[in-house]
């Protein structure tokens, strides 16, 4: 009868003394799909002392960005978000809100058993005309799909003037100013 070796994982890391040989791989991780464990088989060999495994979530987290943070608010296009850990370190690629104001994190963990892991994320930018909260946010998904309403309020109106540098106060009649972040 094949013997199993269980390696507890905390914060992405674990260790165990193992004989050389070929092993079938299984896993437990709340909120993740264990059938996605990769690789499903691993050879432990002399001289190789670390091994990497990955697993996927199958949930979807949608961030709906509007000027008032409601379902019916005016969508904000181009707001960006990124996944993080509890310390705010970023992982993966940024997502961006589309014409409907939706930015989607795919393949996130979820569980309806009360043991869903925390998902951390933060907003990194808005569209330049709206303000945003850049604080680290956290959510748990108890269903496969979940939507969060995110407010990006209109930025305060600012007044600009353009005058001739050599004739104090003489207005430039026609023109524009471009500001880039």
């Amino acid at each position: 009868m094949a013997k199993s070796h269980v390696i507890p994982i905390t914060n992405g890391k674990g260790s165990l003394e193992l004989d050389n040989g070929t092993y079938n791989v299984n896993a437990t991780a709340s909120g993740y799909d264990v059938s996605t464990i990769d690789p499903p088989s691993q050879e432990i060999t002399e001289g190789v002392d670390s091994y990497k495994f990955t697993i996927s979530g199958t949930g979807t987290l949608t961030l709906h960005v509007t000027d008032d943070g409601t379902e019916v608010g005016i969508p904000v296009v181009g707001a960006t978000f990124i996944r993080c850990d509890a310390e705010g370190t970023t992982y993966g690629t940024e997502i961006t809100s589309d014409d409907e104001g939706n930015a989607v994190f795919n393949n996130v963990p979820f569980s309806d058993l009360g043991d869903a892991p925390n998902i951390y994320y933060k907003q990194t930018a808005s569209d330049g005309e709206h303000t945003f909260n850049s604080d680290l946010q956290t959510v748990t998904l108890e269903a496969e799909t979940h939507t969060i309403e995110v407010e990006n309020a209109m930025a305060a109106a600012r007044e600009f003037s353009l005058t001739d540098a050599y004739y104090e106060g003489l207005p430039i009649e026609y023109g524009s100013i471009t500001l880039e972040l």
Partner: protein
Amino acid sequence: MNNIKINCYMCSSLDNALYHICIYDEDDNIVCKKSTNKELIFNPEYNGIFKIIASIDNKYHSYIKKKTLIFNSNYTKNINIIFHKKCIKKTKIIYFTDKNYKNLPIMKGEIILWQKVT
């Protein structure tokens, strides 16, 4: 009395090691003490229970150094003593991360490995 042939081998090696053999009676008295490259013939003076302690040369560090066997000379004609390599298990570090968010650690879980039977 039976002559008992005692053979010594190293597993996974063709080397001709030197084996040191001590045979004790039930009172722990040494009744035979010899060294051999392969085999030894033991001729007990009486039938009974004996203990063999066989050891291999120090230079074979990766092998189990000593083997002990108990036998009854009434029923034994051949004894094979095989020295195996020591099983040294090294600690392996396991990393477990999210497949879709590179290097994002799985905070809590388990990796379970089942050794395939060949």
